[in-house]
Each structure stands twice: as C-alpha cells, then as structure tokens.
C-alpha cells in the first residue's frame, strides 16, 4: 500500500507540473502587452513606481526565468503578486479564499454523495416498479438542468419570493460591521467543528457496524450520536461559543442555498450511477448466495448489493469531484460567494495573470487531491485492489 501510494503521489506531482506549465505559458501568452497596460499606462501608478514594481516583480526578466521563479515559488507557497491588487501577494488572497471554497465543496460533496447513494440504492431495489421511470427522468432532468439558470431560479424562489434564505454573498456585511472576529476566523472555527463532529459521527457508525448483535449496536449508534450532538451543542451554546455564534450562524445561513442547489444538481448523477451499479451487482451470484443463506432482503440489499455497488460509485466520485468544481465556479459566480471560482472568473476577465494562474493551479490541485483520495479510498473498499497494490 505504501509503495503504491508513493507511486501515485509521484505521478500526481508530475501531472501537476505538466499542468502548471501549460497554464502558465497559456496565460502569459495572452494577447497584448499586459505588463505595459497594467503598470506603465496605469494612471493610478506613477511612472517611477511602475518601473520599480516591474523590476521588483521580475517582469522585465526573460520569460523562462519568470516561469522558473514562479514554479519554484509555488512549491514554497509564494505565488507572486497580484497585478490588479498590487502590491498584495497572491498567497494572501488565496489564503483568504481557499477555505471558503473548500467548505462549500466539502459540504456539498458529502451531502450529495450520501443522498445520491441512498436514493440510487432504493431506486435499483425497486426496479420495474411504478415511479421508476418518473424518478429516472426527474433525475436526468436535475442532472442536465442548465445550472446557472437553475441556481438563479432557486434564489428567486427561495430567497426573493419566499424570503427563506439570504440572496447571496457568504455573510451579511451589516451584521459584521463591528464584529470582534474576522470572517475567516469564524469560518475556520465553523469548518473545524463541523469536520470534527462528522468524523466523530462516522466513527460511531463504524464502531456500531462492527458489532454483531443488534441491540448493543443500536445502543452504541444512538448513544454515540446523541453524545456527539450534545457535545456540538455544548460547544457552540456554551461559554466558548456565545460571542461567535451569531456570526457563525450568519455564515451557516448563507451556506444553505448554494449547498442545496449543488446537492440537487449533483445528487441525481450519483443516484443514477448507484442504480446501474446496483443493478449490475444484483445479478451477481453472491447476491443469490446471500438470499439462499436466508438473509432478510434489507440485509441483502445493504450489506451485499449496496456495499459492493459502492466500488464503481466511488471511482465515479473522481469525476464528480471535477464536476463539482465546475459547478462550484458557477455557484460562486451566481451566489457571489467569494471563493476560488469567483477569483478565477474575475482574474481571467480582468487579466490579473498571477492570480489567474494560481487560482487555476489550485483548482488543478484540488482535483488531483480528490483523485488521490478517491484512489486510496477505493483501495480500502476493495480488498482485491488492497492486496494487489501491496505486492
């Protein structure tokens, strides 16, 4: 396993180098003399300052040297300086935006993957029954719906018409005027508590599944879940959370609509995929064995069919990760969510090259990491791969 991981890691890094090279040269080959336009003829920057800036940023150096500086800098966490927000380093901008995107994506992926898997499981089990076609067509409809339009319609309906949720942005600026916390502080706090809570909940489930007897398993599942939730509530409503809570609540409230829309659009894909994967698994002989052993239908479905059908669904998660980033770009654009996707669009349209290259590279890194994680997950789920990769 270790060796396999190392090889995959090496491949990923190599792939990333190719990727960053192409991106860099593509964007630096933009038509027109960007440097002149951004600095020399920029009325906001005095001519001497512009020359200093160009020299300091190394923009007068040969292109290959500039590229080398960027790539070596990249691995040290130095992504250059933004053109449009000069002299703000790109690193700073990214550090501010990245968590916002990751939180949005992570929440959405976890939600839609889970929802889609459950829905697909039931759909497959109901094969041939009434409603199957309606659900399939509805699912395909959600999958192929024109996403920006759908998101705007959701805003119109849920926010503008019904007033249930805030319209856009990731927080309400009026509430934050005299806030004792920075948005990112609250954001990270929110992120970590949610991450830890989910991890704990997952461990409880995992531990309960390991237990053979139904009664204690149920007790552990219930008790553990309640305990974790109590802990969560205690943390936010206790002494530590009193001040920060309204702000966290504000962010959480802004998170709901984009996550909802992302989930609706993406869950159908997972659902349909789980369904076909389940249908294939259900033809396997071991499903017959499981039935012949006298297992109840629910156990056949969950323990045998679904567990094995999970494998291809997990592989597809790779592609899903990529599409959710695509969807994420639009989501951020439509909801004015100040994350990486929004940066990508704005920096590309305003020709802020260093920012654009970095934003794009990070999207690549995120896709690569997603790839990598899913690969590893696949190894854990499928004992056949686990063995062959350790040899």
């Amino acid at each position: 396993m270790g060796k396999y991981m190392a090889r995959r890691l090496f491949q990923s890094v190599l792939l990333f180098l190719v990727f960053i090279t192409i991106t860099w040269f593509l964007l630096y080959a933009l038509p027109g003399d960007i440097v002149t336009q951004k600095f020399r003829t920029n009325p906001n920057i005095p001519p001497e300052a512009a020359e200093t800036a160009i020299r300091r940023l190394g923009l007068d150096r040969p292109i290959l040297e500039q590229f080398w500086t960027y790539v070596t800098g990249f691995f040290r966490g130095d992504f250059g300086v933004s053109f449009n927000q000069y002299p703000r380093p790109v690193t700073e901008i990214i550090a501010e935006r990245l968590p916002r995107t990751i939180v949005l994506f992570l929440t959405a992926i976890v939600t839609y993957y889970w929802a889609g898997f459950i829905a697909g499981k039931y759909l497959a089990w109901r094969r041939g029954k009434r409603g199957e076609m309606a659900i399939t067509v509805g699912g395909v409809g959600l999958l192929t719906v024109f996403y920006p339009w759908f998101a705007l319609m959701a805003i119109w309906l849920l926010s503008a018409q019904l007033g249930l949720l805030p319209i856009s942005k990731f927080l309400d600026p009026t509430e934050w005027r005299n806030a004792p916390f920075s948005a990112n502080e609250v954001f990270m706090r929110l992120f970590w508590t949610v991450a830890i809570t989910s991890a704990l909940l997952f461990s409880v489930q995992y531990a309960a599944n390991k237990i053979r007897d139904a009664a204690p398993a149920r007790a552990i599942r219930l008790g553990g879940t309640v305990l974790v939730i109590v802990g969560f509530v205690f943390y936010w409503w206790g002494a530590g959370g009193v001040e920060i809570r309204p702000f966290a609540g504000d962010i959480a409230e802004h998170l709901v609509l984009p996550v909802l829309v992302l989930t609706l659009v993406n869950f159908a894909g997972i659902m349909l995929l789980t369904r076909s994967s389940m249908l294939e698994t259900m033809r396997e002989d071991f499903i017959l064995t499981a039935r012949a052993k006298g297992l109840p239908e629910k156990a056949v479905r969950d323990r045998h069919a679904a567990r094995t059908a999970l494998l291809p669904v997990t592989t597809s998660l790779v592609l899903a990760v990529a599409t959710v980033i695509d969807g994420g770009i639009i989501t951020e654009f439509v909801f004015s969510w100040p994350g990486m996707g929004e940066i990508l669009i704005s920096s590309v349209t305003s020709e802020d090259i260093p920012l654009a290259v970095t934003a794009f590279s990070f999207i690549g890194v995120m896709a690569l990491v997603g790839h990598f994680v899913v690969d590893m997950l696949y190894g854990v789920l499928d004992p056949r791969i686990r063995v062959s990769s350790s040899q």
Partner: protein
Amino acid sequence: MSRPLLEVDHLVMNYTTEKGDVSAIQDVSFTLNEGESLGLVGESGCGKTSIAMSLLRLVAENARFDSGEIRLDGTDLLSLTDEEMRQRRWNDISMVFQGAMNAWNPVYKVGDQIREAMDLHFHPRLSNAEVEARISKLFELVGLNPAMMNRYPHEFSGGMRQRAIIAMALSCDPKIIIADEPTTALDVIVQDQILQELKKIQADLGMSIIYISHDIAVIAEVTDKIGVMYAGKLVELGSTREVFARPRHPYAFLLLSSTPSVTGPRRKLAPLEGEPPDLLNPPTGCRFHPRCPYATDQCATDEPPMEDAGDGHQVACWNWKEVPELGGLTK
C-alpha cells in the same frame, strides 16, 4: 434411512416472458429420503437449476408456480410466508451453487460470510469463539487450512473456493444440501476429490444431498438414485445401479448405450440427433418425440405418464418395453 424427507409432488413451474411462457418444470415428482443422495441429470437448459431454485424458493422474479407441492417434512414450502421460508433457507436446505466461483462476495472475508449464515440460524447465537471453532472444524472437514477463514475470496483458488462453499453449506447442519454442478469448472482430479469428500461427509453427518449435473458419469459414483430430465420433465427415476444397468427411457438409453463402461476413458459423445426443444413451445405429447427413434403416433399427441418398470424404477414413455437391454453394462 428410509423416511421420506422431501417430496416434490407434480410440480409445474413456468417463466413468464415477453414471448410467452417458458415451461421449465413440467409435472415433476420425486421423493428424497433421509440420508439419501439423489442425482438429477439432463442436458443444459432442461430445468435442473430451476428445480434446485424452486426447492429454496429462490426462483427468478418472472417464475410462476402453477401447481404441485414441495413438502419438506410434510410442510408445503410453497405455502409458507416469505418470512417462514427465509428462516428455513440454509437451516433446512443449503446449496452449493452452479459456478460457485462467483458465489462469494469479494469484499468480505470468507469466514465472515460463513459466520453471517450461522448468526442467522443459530438460536441463541454462538459466541465468537464458538463460531471460529466451528468454522475451523468445517474447514478441516473439507480439506482447507482453518487459517484461510480470515482471507478474502480472491485469495482462494477455484477448488478452494468450492470447498469453502461446501463448508458454508454445512455450517448450519442442514437436512438437505443441493449441489448444482458443484465441480463443473474444476479440473478432473479436483472434481473427483471434492465429490469423494462430499460422499464421506454425507456418510459421517447423515444429511441428504441432491446432486445436479449434465454429466451422468460424474455423479454416478456418489448417488443412490438418479433422475433423468428432459425438457422440463423427469423422464426416468430409479436407483443409480438400475438406471445404469437398464435404462428404460429411450433418451437415457441413447445416452448410456454409446459408452462401453462407466470407468472407461472419457470421451465426448453426440449420441442424439437434433436440437433440444425450445421450452417456449415444447413439443406436444412426449417432449422427446421429435428426436426419438422409438416414437409412435401416440407419442406426438399424448403425454406419457410415469410408470413403474419394476424395482421402483420409474419411466415416462409409452414404448419403454421396446427399448433393448444394455448388454454387459454394470456399475
């Protein structure tokens, strides 16, 4: 030894398809006694697996039981509720599947999959240690290293997987084991070993076994009785010795006459002219009549009933008396 355990009584089962009904089991009756072993033979597609699956009531969704009963210890399995039937599976009747290579779920350890069955059917449930002890014992019985129980199915060879399946089939002390082509995919030596082991296990534990095969010779040595199937019907039923010595049905006769000795060299034979019938539109009267050299006019219109040909040897043929003796054929 002679108490009837399983009685299949005039069973009729059809598969509903878009093109019409597939008559997979047509009026089949037989009895299996305690501790007895029965072989069902017939060419591919004649309904052997359909019968096996009917005994467990695990038939495909489009299957339809039209009449008949399957009585286990006097209870008609077809009239049980789903839940009652579920309780009986594996506990009363377990199965070694055709193509058991794929009968293991690849993502769970073999031992855990056996334990799953035991957890369902032992009341009160066995402790971990008891389960392990039992699996170890079963593994030794079928000639596997007990340590293998903590391995995944893909780490087993074909023969080992098949042995493990047999261990699993034994795990809940069933009254009957159905072995559907238990050794078809294995090489001849392993085939023999496994069959001999099954025979020994049966002698030790005393359960009944139904062997299913398309090759009479493979199961001849391990069965007490043999039923010959043709196109969804049981056409001949008798003790293995009788059927081999004096096949009464023309179909069985043609199968056996073309080979001089059961223990002689193995060869592939094509003793029969023509194709097996399409069960969507089975021939009227005797289903064998289009291919039968002894056919008379009656055969094309009237279905021959099962008749006793002496010694409990039953045959469904109008003209079985015309069929000559197989000279010099002994088992």
